[in-house]
Structures are given as structure tokens and as C-alpha cells.
């Protein structure tokens, strides 16, 4: 990647590469899903308080805490990497991607409305978040790890559905993968930033 391409890419995709910002959200989802799988258990004080009321307040506090962590992550980026204002909206221009997404959404709606089957939804969600794979502007490394993550989620979802295992595992895998992608994006952002140089004439 030459200097001009690197700088333009970094500037246009700066907020998109701030992967740590979304980490608290995926952690929240992961915590709730692991609870439904019986891996982790949130403390409940049945008999002392009404279970539903306590759950409601626990959820609200958890969301607030994760919102705070996300805000702190934003502050970290602003302080260490700076901020910018941009009008760029990076949507994939690839026709194959849009055709694939459209087909998947249509199939999901059909399955949901006429057959009552929700199994297509994870594929739609996966197609939405693997959109960087179809953007030619992205460096090959980023496209590769999005492709790898997408393939991992699609095949594991297919395996779970065919073997009739617990569907909550699908969400757990999605959360772990999205968390890993956030970290990978953060590392890419770090690698795109130029190390301090003193050899330029003032």
C-alpha cells in the first residue's frame, strides 16, 4: 500500500477501524447468551426482590455500564489518535454483494412469514457485517480476516442447524467472532498509523 492510498484509506475508514468501541456491546450479548447456555449465571435474588424487577434493573445497569465503556473507548481513540469529521459513507459497491444480500433477506422473510423458520436470519446478519470483504478499497489482510470470520460463522451455523443443537450457540459464535474482528480492526488501525519521524525538513 503506497503512502497516498494508506493516508486516504486511514482517513476514510478511521471510525470503522475503531474496533474496541463495539467490544462492550458484543461482550454484553455474549454474557447473556452464555447465561442462556448455562455456562454463566447472573445472581438472582428470588424471594428477596421480584425476579423480573431485579432482572430489569440488572439489564439497565449492565447496558449503562457497557455504554460507559464504549464512551471511554471513544475517548481513548480521540485522545490517542485524534478525531475528524467526514462525509464519507462506505457502502460496498459490489453488485454480487447486494444481489446476495437481497436474496438472503427475501428468503429469510419468506421462511419467517410462511414457514415460521428463523434459521435464515444468522446468514443475513453475517452478510451485513462481512460487507468489508466486498469493498475493493480494503487492504487484502482485512478482506481475508472478514472472509475467514464469515466462513467460520456460516459453516458453524449450518452445522448447528443440521445437528439440531442449541441455537444460542450460533449467537455466541457470532459475538466471539465480532469481538475478534473488532480487535483485528483495532490492530489494523495501529499498523496504519505512521510511527513518529524526525527526518522531515521543517
Amino acid at each position, binding site marked *: 500500500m503506497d*503512502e497516498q492510498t494508506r*493516508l486516504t484509506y486511514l482517513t476514510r475508514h478511521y471510525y470503522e477501524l475503531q474496533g474496541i468501541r463495539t467490544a462492550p456491546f458484543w461482550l454484553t450479548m455474549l454474557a447473556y447468551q452464555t447465561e442462556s447456555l448455562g455456562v454463566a449465571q447472573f445472581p438472582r435474588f428470588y424471594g428477596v426482590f421480584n425476579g423480573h424487577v431485579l432482572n430489569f434493573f440488572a439489564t439497565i445497569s449492565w447496558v449503562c455500564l457497557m455504554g460507559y465503556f464504549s464512551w471511554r473507548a471513544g475517548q481513548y481513540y480521540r485522545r490517542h*489518535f485524534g478525531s475528524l469529521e467526514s462525509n464519507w459513507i462506505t457502502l460496498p459497491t459490489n453488485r454480487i454483494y447486494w444481489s446476495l444480500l437481497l436474496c438472503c433477506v427475501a428468503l429469510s422473510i419468506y421462511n419467517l412469514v410462511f414457514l415460521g423458520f428463523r434459521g435464515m436470519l444468522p446468514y443475513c446478519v453475517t452478510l451485513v457485517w462481512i460487507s468489508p470483504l466486498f469493498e475493493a478499497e480494503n487492504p487484502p489482510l482485512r478482506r481475508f480476516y472478514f472472509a475467514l470470520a464469515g466462513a467460520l460463522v456460516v459453516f458453524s451455523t449450518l452445522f448447528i442447524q443440521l445437528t439440531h443443537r442449541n441455537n444460542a450457540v450460533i449467537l455466541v459464535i457470532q459475538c466471539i467472532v465480532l469481538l475478534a474482528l473488532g480487535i483485528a480492526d483495532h490492530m489494523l488501525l495501529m499498523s496504519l498509523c*505512521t510511527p513518529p519521524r524526525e527526518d522531515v525538513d*521543517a
Partner: protein
Amino acid sequence: MLENQPSFPEVNRVIHEPARLSILTVLSACTNADFTFLQTATGLSKGNLSVQLTRLEEAALISVEKILERKKTRTTVKLSAEGRIQLNEYWQTMKRIQEQGAPPIIQKTTDTRSDRA
């Protein structure tokens, strides 16, 4: 002999400097950027970046705005309309130079052993 050499178009010297070109490239890809981001993207030191920004501002290629935020000054930099035109012209000039063909590279002999002999 010089008559046979292709005449290359004039290049804007203010933009042609690598550090200033990096700053302008960043600014051309966004509405505005703050000082920290420019430092992160270009890798320039605070002093150097400040000098380059002053030069670009003097050439009316950028506009610098200082905002007071929580007792701290935040510097935001924006590419001016003139700057955008000049930068586009610069890239067109560079493209024309590339199309005309680069001048022959004079190779230097760096073999130290033959020098010693």
C-alpha cells in the same frame, strides 16, 4: 543536448514537499481533522507539523481553527476551496509528467572496493 530533453510542467513547490503532501492528502479525504489525527496519520512531530501547517495556511491552502474545549485548545484543520483546486492541479501535473516519461536515471557507482583499488 538540453533541447532534446522533454520540458516538464511546473510543480507547485508548496504541495510537492512530502510532509505537506501527506497533510493535504489526509485533509482531502475528510471535512476537517484535528491536530492529533494529523500527527497520528503523518507521523510528524508537534513542532514540525505546526511549521508545515503554518506554511500551508500562509499559502491559503488550508484554514486552521482553534476551539477552546474544557480549558484546552483544540486545533482543527480544514482544506480550503483553493487548496482542493491546487491539490487536484498538482495530481494532474504529476500525471502529465508520468505520461511524458521520467528523465533517465544517472547511475552512480557505489562499489567502494574498486575505489580503493
